[in-house]
């Protein structure tokens, strides 16, 4: 009986954990895929997989990297299932315009469109850092890169982003 109650509490806690992380997981999947519908599918699949494998999450403090690993795998699987051919960034921006240019956040639309234009290899570590709050070491583990390689990608990501956003980059260092 006690085991049953404990199990119920554990599952309820896991459900709450899924719910609290879900908005940022959706955002991460959105920036990964640049496709809101696909992002919702990927996160739904991710949460179901996580739900089934919840016993393998031994430390709740490590939940975020655990979910990120699942979501990145699930996103890769979505490529195996579908053969995407759309790479026209302007088309992607136009399609996701309602999300990128929400009326009350008009000043951010330009930066969001610029983020869409960043190469995947720069956009992903940038999202892991800015959106998901991962350290350089955590990003390196997640992307299977060295720490210096992560820092180089983050440097290039911001440098390109600032150019795309029309920032004054005269004082930015060269490569």
């Amino acid at each position: 009986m006690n085991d049953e109650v404990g199990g119920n509490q554990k599952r309820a806690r896991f459900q709450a954990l899924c719910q609290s992380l879900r908005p940022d997981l959706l955002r991460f999947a959105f920036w990964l895929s640049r496709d809101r519908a696909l992002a919702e599918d990927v996160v739904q699949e991710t949460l179901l997989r996580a739900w089934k494998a919840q016993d393998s999450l031994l430390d709740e403090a490590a939940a975020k990297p655990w979910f990120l690993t699942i979501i990145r795998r699930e996103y890769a699987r979505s490529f195996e299932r579908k053969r995407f051919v759309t790479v026209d960034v302007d088309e992607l921006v136009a399609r996701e315009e309602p999300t990128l240019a929400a009326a009350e956040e008009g000043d951010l639309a330009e930066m969001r469109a610029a983020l869409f234009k960043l190469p995947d290899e720069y956009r992903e570590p940038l999202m892991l850092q800015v959106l998901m709050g991962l350290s350089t070491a955590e990003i390196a583990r997640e992307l299977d890169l060295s720490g210096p390689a992560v820092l180089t990608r983050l440097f290039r990501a911001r440098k390109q982003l600032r150019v795309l956003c029309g920032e004054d980059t005269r004082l930015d260092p060269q490569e």
Partner: protein
Amino acid sequence: MMDCSTYRRSMLADPRDPDAHLSEHRENCHECTAYTEKLLSFESRLDRAVRVRLPDAAATPWRAAAAPRAALYRRNRFAMAASVLLAVVVAGALWLASPGPSLAADVVTHMGGEPGAWLQTDVPVPGAELQGVLQDSHVRLGAGAGVVSYASSCAFRGHHVPHLVIQTESGPVTVMVLVHERVQKPVSFDEQGYRGVIVPVAGHGSLAVLTHGASTDLKTVELIAAQVLDSISWSG
């Protein structure tokens, strides 16, 4: 001492890097201090830009019971259907039988998502950025609150709420303005390394104030909460 090019390269890779060599260079280089302020302003916009609003998906509570659209293109549909059915039965029963997570637990969980916010710094968030974060909650923050070093509008329990970090004598303190969450009386908590209090605010929900680490006792946190509350005025 580190040269300017190396400093700016490091800052572009991680603008919130607390490395002492970076701080030392910044303190001794007027041009790089100005560069950093502009970069942090850019970073603040980036921080807001990545947090796109996803109202349809994020507003609905997730349950394992929800039918996944992605399942439509799974190879083994029957196996998936069986899994989902099982999840529906199990999770649905659990959802109905179990109480919701406490507000304090959700606040603590949210903290885990933004570790960079706790940086100890004297660089304030630009006034316009802070106002942008506060305006949806009809909040104004007086100068008595201290230096606000981090301000973000965060998704929390289906609403966007101001999440601030204020630099106090006791170190960085996080404040969440929870206008949609009511509590009957102050709720203290000490979980996962976070120590804090959620205080009721008449007519405006509640305010969560918390510190990270063991250096600040609960009594001090309660005093800080009272000070922050005194410095807040409501415009709506």
